[in-house]
């Protein structure tokens, strides 16, 4: 696999704040690579370093094996979709999209053809003469996308591109972005704080926290084998048992996490009899909260007066089912379904 992007030992500080702390990552050609983390975790700074807007204090940025650390952004073959779209307010859609061609002095029919082509791909044909201020949020997003794609960059950087859109539009754009990425066969570096978005779209994810990368892996592995409690907690819904509770309740010498969909609620003695006690951890909990979520119930239990456990209880068959607060249940999950965590 060709290395599209390689960051080696990247450090960047703003005063006393370490924004990037020894970042190493590699993205292959054509990969959809997400930088995921809470706000202030360094993912956007990392994107700026890749684009060239910020110079790292130390480390090497390579794009297709070429060291670009000291090359200004206008000479790098990467393009960015900005969080606020950064459309030029004094230019119409056509001028915005054709900007990079114009600065390259590409003119005439070849410019027109390229602009028409890309506007068709992002479904903006006919909007040529509108100003950005006359467009909706979703349309601006498409202009920003078209503008950065028109040059067929080797790598496209996207800084929370869907953050400002409403849920329905966001889901639609997720599908479209993925299609465009397949169609253009270019590497996407996608910054987001939305773990659902990262899980559903990415080939691989780098989880950022406090300027460091905690884990780089495929969405499935990040979800099922989080490396530590931060990743486990940040990705999806999970319940974490710390070392002391794990020892006291289950005789385990390490902290662990368990996903809510893996927990079963054993309401009756008959239920309890159906499971193999060798393969399950079994404990008792008190219901502290029960929320209807459409396809399932989200039940929160308190175990041993200090551990919170979240359970997804499928509502197949009985949509009106619910649990009263303070009900006591026996709950269990397979020993193989837990993820042990390094603190």
């Amino acid at each position, binding site marked *: 696999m060709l290395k599209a992007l390689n960051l080696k030992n990247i450090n960047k500080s703003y005063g006393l704040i370490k924004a990037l702390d020894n970042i190493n990552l590699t993205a292959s050609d054509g990969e959809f690579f997400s930088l995921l983390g809470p706000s202030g975790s360094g993912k956007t700074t990392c994107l700026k370093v890749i684009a060239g807007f910020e110079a790292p204090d130390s480390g090497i940025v390579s794009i297709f094996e070429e060291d670009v650390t000291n090359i200004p952004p*206008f000479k790098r073959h990467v*393009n960015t979709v900005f969080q606020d779209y950064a459309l030029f307010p004094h230019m119409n859609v056509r001028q915005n999209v054709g900007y990079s061609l114009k600065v390259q002095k590409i003119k005439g029919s070849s410019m027109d053809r390229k602009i028409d082509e890309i506007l068709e791909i992002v479904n903006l044909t006919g909007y040529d003469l509108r100003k950005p201020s006359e467009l909706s949020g979703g349309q601006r997003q498409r202009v920003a996308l078209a503008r950065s794609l028109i040059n067929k960059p080797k790598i496209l950087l996207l800084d929370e591109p869907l953050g400002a859109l409403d849920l329905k539009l966001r889901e639609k754009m997720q599908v479209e972005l993925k299609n465009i990425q397949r169609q253009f066969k270019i590497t996407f570096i996608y910054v987001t704080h939305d773990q659902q978005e990262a899980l559903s779209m990415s080939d691989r994810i780098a989880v950022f926290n406090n300027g460091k990368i905690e884990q780089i892996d495929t969405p499935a592995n990040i979800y099922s084998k989080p490396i530590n409690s931060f990743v486990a907690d940040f990705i999806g819904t999970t319940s974490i048992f710390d070392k002391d509770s794990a020892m006291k309740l289950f005789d385990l010498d390490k902290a662990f996490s368990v996903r809510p969909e893996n927990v079963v609620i054993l309401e009756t003695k008959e239920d309890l009899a159906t499971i193999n006690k060798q393969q399950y951890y079994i404990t008792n909990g008190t219901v502290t909260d029960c929320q209807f979520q459409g396809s399932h119930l989200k039940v929160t239990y308190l175990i041993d007066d200090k551990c919170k456990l979240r359970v997804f209880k499928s509502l197949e068959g009985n949509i009106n089912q619910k649990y009263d607060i303070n009900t006591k249940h026996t709950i269990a999950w397979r020993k193989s379904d837990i993820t042990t965590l390094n603190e």
Partner: protein
Amino acid sequence: MNNLLDSFSNFSYRNKNFIFLSFLIVPLLWLGIVYLGSLLIFLGHSFFHLDGFTGQIVYEFSFKTLIELFSSPANIDILIRTVALAACVTIGSAIIGFPIAYYMAKFTSPKVKIFLFIAIMLPLWSSYLVRVYSWKLILAKEGIINWFFEKLNLEWLLDTILSTPVIGGPSLSISYIGMFLVFTYIWLPFMILPIQASLERVPNSLINASHDLGANKRQTFYKIILPLALPGIIAGSIFTFSLTLGDYIIPYIIGTSKFFIGQAVYTHQGTAGNIPLAAAFSLVPIVVMVVYIYIAKRMGAFNAL
């Protein structure tokens, strides 16, 4: 009584225009009658004329005064001289003011920015006359600029500059160069502040986006920063241009014996008592400004607003 107040408050809440109007009536009357009214009456005088024998104003509508204004070569000289100087001062202020405004808007910390704001505003807090007279001393033959050139053995350079026809003169303090320097100094804050405000509104992400799309610094400046700052530059130039067109103190203190519009107005309506001609002269800056703003608008200067 309480009931009356109550229903009045209800009425005024439901009828927002009533409240607006009651607040606006005084400023509107002031603007309409005292300000625009007197201005129009004064300008209206340009359609009257002075009787050549009696020296009395003839209150009859005619274009005699305007024809007199534009048919006399001396008057045309005054108009051209003033407009040319105002244009030079405007361009000079823009060239000096833009980098300062750009630095303030994009590169300073908030503390330095406040310091620069005060530094730019500070001269405006002192008397205009004092500042102009100080410049008279600075520019005089015995002044610091001359002294500086002497010390550097560059007197010949200054003399060459001063011997340039039209813009030169016996010393900097009696030349168009001197006037240009003083005007540029006096009006510079009015150019910097609007440009700074317009640049402040340009998000850095636009500049980043331009670089990202392959535009180098020069292209980014001409295609993004300058067009977006243009409304500010035009606003600033309206100040510097119109203020220079109307000023008569600097030409009086610094200038040569040749008249500018402001001096012409001053002389005609004062000693000569020729109010119609003074009014006709004052009409010129207004017409020039209207034409200027119209051209700026046609060229798309306000498209980025």
